[in-house]
């Protein structure tokens, strides 16, 4: 699904990613861990083409995105869903509209939208909140809306940037169950996190980044060290 070949990314005088090569297979569930400023954010921004590498090549879904023209970035982004720590929901739109919005962007028909959105909301366990505004929901519920939006177009890849960062442990675990469920349906999940207990409990592949290098890559790994 994702393949980095000797990728380097510098900001002025800092090297955020330094000659990284890695393979993430279709259907994988990967935790990306490491201290702040280690290069985790850069790593996922390279995948979503928010940033371009200075050298090396990056493949997403078999496609070389290193020299993808700006015009084709939207196509790339439609293959992936993104979830963030701060949810990034539109405050003026209802839960339903927030999710439907992602489908409007890809020009789905009104009928498809009407059929699909309620399904996804009920998978996420928030079918009854459809007409509420996001800010009236709890944090956990807001993150469910964000996940619903990320997966409503059936992406092959889900990128989650500290999705449990603002949540209490129980709620966080509920979110993790949802992500696992999505992963079981065949979506590759890449999750950046600081939550040691979650990583340890899930027992999935862990890629640890520090100083722009991959310092550890273990299947069924643990968080490894305390931060």
């Amino acid at each position: 699904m994702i393949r980095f070949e000797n990728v380097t990314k510098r900001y002025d005088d800092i090297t955020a990613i330094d000659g990284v090569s890695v393979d993430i297979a279709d259907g994988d569930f990967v935790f990306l861990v490491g201290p702040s400023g280690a290069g985790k954010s850069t790593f996922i921004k390279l995948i979503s083409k928010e940033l371009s590498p200075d050298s090396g090549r990056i493949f997403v879904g078999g496609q070389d995105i290193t020299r993808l023209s700006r015009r084709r970035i939207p196509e790339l982004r439609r293959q992936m869903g993104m979830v963030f720590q701060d949810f990034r929901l539109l405050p003026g739109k209802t839960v339903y509209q927030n999710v439907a919005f992602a489908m409007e962007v890809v020009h789905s028909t009104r009928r498809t939208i009407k059929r699909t959105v309620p399904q996804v909301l009920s998978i996420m366990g928030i079918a009854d909140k459809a007409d509420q505004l996001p800010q009236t929901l709890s944090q956990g519920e807001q993150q469910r809306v964000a996940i619903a939006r990320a997966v409503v177009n059936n992406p092959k890849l889900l990128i989650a940037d500290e999705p449990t960062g603002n949540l209490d442990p129980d709620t966080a675990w509920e979110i993790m169950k949802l992500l696992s469920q999505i992963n079981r349906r065949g979506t590759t999940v890449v999750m950046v996190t600081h939550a040691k207990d979650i990583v340890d409990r899930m027992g999935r592949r862990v890629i640890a980044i520090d100083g722009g290098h991959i310092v550890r890559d273990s299947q069924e790994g643990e968080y490894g060290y305390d931060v």
Partner: protein
Amino acid sequence: MFRGLIHSIKEAFFQIFRNKVMSFVSILSISAMLMILGVFFFLTVNVNNMTENIKGEFDTIEVFLEDYTTKADAQEIARTLSTLGEVESIEYVDRDQAMEEFRERWGDKAYLLDTLSDNPLPNSLRIKLSGLEGGSLVAEVAKTTIGVEDVRYYQNEVNKVLSISEAIQKVTFVMILFLIVVSIVVVSSTIKLAVMSREAEINIMKYVGATNWFVRGPMLIEGMLIGAISAGIALGAISYAYMRVSEFFGDEALKLFSSNLVEADFMITNLAWIFMALGISIGAVGSIISMRRFLKV
């Protein structure tokens, strides 16, 4: 593509209503600019028109002939004068024709002339000049020719009017340019505020895979709609004002400058096109300028 356009239009209307204050401020500022522009436009066109009239009227020298001159005498005088430079043509106007023209100029007040028992007007030669510079020489020569009773030529007055109107036109031109620049700046910063308040939304759109046009389309149409609405408001206000002005001031202008104000219908039709084009492009340019930096995610 088609669905994209429909989406843009729908979304644009939605946004205009959602950002009522912002839309209102934009419409207010664009229509204010357009109104000021309109005033200057009316001013220039009228000054222009007046100048043309004056030029047309005063690039002629009227040579009034003594009553005893015959048509043959007149032709002789005309031949002499036509050898001078800058004389384009000389036309013989007999007293009856002069009276007829006089009546025409007085229009619906021509009945006043009916009280005259006799036509008091003399025969005359009407000399058309090709330029205004040599006019005074022709006038001098004509004055000393036998058979000429009087010469009418207002060179100084003409020059004065011409230089004033030239100055007015220059000032208006500069003002109009200045106003266009100012209105683009005002509009783009107003729209920038609107866009900034939606930065988060635009960001999210980009993350979900929206194309630039999906984001830009609605805002572009929003800008154009706001421009069109402003143009409509400005046009309404300024047309009304112009009609009132020409109603009250038209006769005065006729007396003072011997030139009518330019027809309101003509002015308003032209201004409608100018306003629409200008309003819509100010809105479009404004929104594109202010959006650019938000689309780089």
